[in-house]
């Protein structure tokens, strides 16, 4: 599930429906990590913000992608709730077509669940985990750390 802080009010529905939470308001749980009021002004000036924006261009692309993914899923979830149809298990991507992964490792060995779900609720295996090299422009085979 992908949530976004700026749109948390919209995303609460997902938490409620998919995780089963009843309390989904951030206001209801206090403000443990909120700013204390002792903050200094700023901190960055306009020029620094521009440099950080440029430096993080790829992160912004990811953020936009995540937002599109989130909106699409929220919208489909709303449609499902409206129709109240039986949910069909699927792991098919719902956003843009999936490009070839950086590498195609075998999925990790499945670990048996303690209490198998009924047949109609079982899910397909999760897709392969994408693994990348720490070096630029070099792919490596997946070797899960053990």
């Amino acid at each position: 599930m992908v949530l976004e802080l700026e749109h948390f009010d919209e995303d609460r529905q997902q938490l409620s429906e998919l995780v089963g939470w009843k309390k989904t308001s951030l206001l209801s749980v206090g403000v443990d990590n909120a700013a204390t009021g002792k903050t200094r002004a700023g901190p960055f000036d306009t020029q620094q913000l521009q440099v950080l924006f440029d430096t993080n261009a790829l992160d912004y692309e990811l953020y936009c992608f995540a937002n599109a993914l989130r909106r699409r899923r929220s919208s489909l979830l709303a449609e499902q709730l409206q129709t109240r149809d039986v949910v069909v298990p699927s792991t098919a991507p719902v956003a843009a077509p999936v490009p070839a992964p950086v590498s195609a490792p075998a999925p990790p060995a499945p670990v048996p669940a303690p209490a198998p779900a009924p047949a109609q609720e079982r899910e397909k295996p999760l897709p392969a985990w994408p693994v990348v090299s720490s070096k630029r422009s070099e792919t490596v085979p997946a070797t899960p750390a053990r």
Partner: protein
Amino acid sequence: MCDLAHFNAERLSGNTANCNLESDDAHVTTKGVDISCDDRLAKQRRDGSTWMGLERWIDSEMCSNFYYVTMLREPLDRMVSNVHQIWNTYADRKTNFSWVTPEDIMTWASPGKAYFDYPTEFMEVSTAAYDNFYIRTLCGAGVFFLPAGSVTREHLETAKNVLRCVFPALHVPRAASMRRPHIDYA
């Protein structure tokens, strides 16, 4: 998210004030720490938890026994918030970071710089915190500690795949989703 999990009667993992195992803490001091699915499942069974927080880079294995939740924030907002966090939250500690200036941070994020000098603060006082933090986090430890300017479009595509693969929470049957423990990448 940890507080919400608590208020919704999730059984929380770990002995810390947060929802995470010590090995998953934002202040973990080992650069390559990585928990396998077998180990994670064993820990989950041992403490009976239904919710785990993960405050560091993602593991190299995805676990089919868990559902994953992540929350993103507008990148510059996250960076500004992070500065206030390190200025204020740790102000009373022996090692605090009120000395950090925006100019220091710009240096950490300058091309080629790999500033990871504080082993307890890899997530907050480092190059990674100000240079494509989300991609680094979603690509795992191998990418998280790269110098500034080293995150590539290839890494971006990997991060997108992680979001597609690890967080495919659309058609999850409700009853099944509630039976499985969750990992929260906060």
